[in-house]
């Protein structure tokens, strides 16, 4: 768990606060996305958590510990850190890069070697093939995989990720987002994730914190932010297509209507998002389709009208 209380930061010479009395709690095992326009304080807030930036006021607790009471170097070794440009060490092999924190923690060599192979496999890279390569020999997506493996090396309970997929092409990005979301969930990491891309935020976040001018505007689940934007700023920030974005977050089996005798020509899987189902229905020119469950049998019906009810903002 990460608790920020009344956090304040002003950079020397700056007129306004970079972080303005921010209070925010990230529950254990959740992904919290910090998002907002440039200069909103999202990166500054993240960098305070591992003391790359020293706060001027307020407290930060990580797993109950006040970070100001911990030596910054020790603190950082207990927090995973991934940045946009990845920052792999070009003069070190992939294995040495992944082993950075375990080496700092003085693990024995055999344990480090085991851990490196384990992590490379976890992020989908064959250890035998990549262990001894150098960063410049890898593609952008592969480097980012190594960057994440390196951050996970000493199994830190908390991870900070600063636009980790910012410099990657859209197709690779979507795949890495899915993979890393699975990894982070399965390892139950508490994550603070900075991005400026609302779609990425909606996809990655258990909760999204929308910041503006250093202050917290809204902190809620993706569903709640789309359904009930706190004000006009949030509304414009999430975009005019927020109704469609909400549909992307809802699975077909959440909007089921009872099966009727009538058979439908088309069917989708129950895990399909309502947005994809709707797109499919528009493309094929139908008003209703069957939804099939895990066993492959129809469990209900999805209609355009039913989807529309889900898209309408509840008052």
């Amino acid at each position, binding site marked *: 768990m990460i608790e920020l209380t009344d956090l304040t930061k002003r950079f020397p010479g700056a007129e306004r606060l970079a972080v303005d009395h921010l209070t925010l709690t990230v529950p254990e095992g959740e992904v919290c996305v910090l998002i907002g326009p440039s200069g909103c304080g999202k990166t500054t807030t993240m960098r305070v958590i591992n003391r790359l930036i020293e706060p001027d006021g307020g407290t930060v607790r990580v797993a109950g510990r006040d970070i100001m009471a911990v030596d910054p170097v020790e*603190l950082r070794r207990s927090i995973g*850190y991934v940045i946009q440009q990845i920052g792999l060490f070009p003069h070190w092999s992939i294995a040495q890069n992944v082993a950075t924190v375990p080496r*700092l923690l003085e693990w024995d060599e055999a344990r480090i070697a085991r851990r490196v192979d384990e992590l490379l496999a976890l992020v989908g890279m064959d250890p035998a093939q990549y262990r001894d390569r150098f*960063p410049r020999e890898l593609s952008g997506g592969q480097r980012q995989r190594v960057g994440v493996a390196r951050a996970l090396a000493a199994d830190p309970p908390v991870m900070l990720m600063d636009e980790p997929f910012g410099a990657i092409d859209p197709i690779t990005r979507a795949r890495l987002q899915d993979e890393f979301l699975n990894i982070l969930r399965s390892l139950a990491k508490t994550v603070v994730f900075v991005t400026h891309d609302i779609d990425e935020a909606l996809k990655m976040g258990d909760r999204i914190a929308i910041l503006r001018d250093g202050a917290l505007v809204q902190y809620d689940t993706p569903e709640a932010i789309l359904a009930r934007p706190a004000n006009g700023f949030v509304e414009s920030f999430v975009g005019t297509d927020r109704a469609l974005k909400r549909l992307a977050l809802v699975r077909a089996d959440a909007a089921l209507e009872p099966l009727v005798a009538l058979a439908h020509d088309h069917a989708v899987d129950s895990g399909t998002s309502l947005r994809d189902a709707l797109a499919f229905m528009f493309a094929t020119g139908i008003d209703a389709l069957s939804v099939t469950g895990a066993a492959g049998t129809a469990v209900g019906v999805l209609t355009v009208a039913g989807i529309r009810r889900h898209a309408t903002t509840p008052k």
Partner: protein
Amino acid sequence: MLVEAWQFIVAHPDRFFAALLRHVELSAGALVIAIALAVPAGIAFAAKPRAALAAITLANVGRTLPSLAVLALVMPVLGTGFAPSLFALTLLALPPILINTCTAIRQVDPEIVDAARGMGMSRGQIVRGVEVPIALPVIFAGVRTAAVQVVSGAVLAAYIGGGGLGDFITAGIAMMALPQLFVGAVPATLLSIGTDQLFGRLQKSMTPKGLRA
């Protein structure tokens, strides 16, 4: 002429090898001292932009001074002999090493340094483990420049009584004895070329594998 020079060497091997040894001692000594001073100074200055600028500017001025002028300027203060020559040659070697170290450290990608800090490396660990290894090829290029400059400059040490191969050259000029002049000039030239070659190879072998193109 070269034959006569060779005969001179064969006739006076002690004098020749003593001069050669002195030449190498002067050069190597000056280079080692300069590395010991300029590399840590360059690293320290690199962390402070204003100090870095001042150091580089000063070093650039130092670089433009003619080698003979440096030796001449040292003489009234320190007198003549081995120590003043060593001092002057060290001064000659400092600028290229200082400039290259300072510039190379400053050119290390800030994202890499940020990642190193963010993962919990101490300042010393970042300098030793990340900044210096990445900067090493450029630092070593400065050492190579300095080495060649010192080996060439050491010829001039003869003017302030520092000895070395320059002794044969000054004597040869003074007495219009061309063979003796060659005894100094040819080995001094070969030594310079050899130094450049040697340091060029060292530079390659010192470049970390991941940074080789």
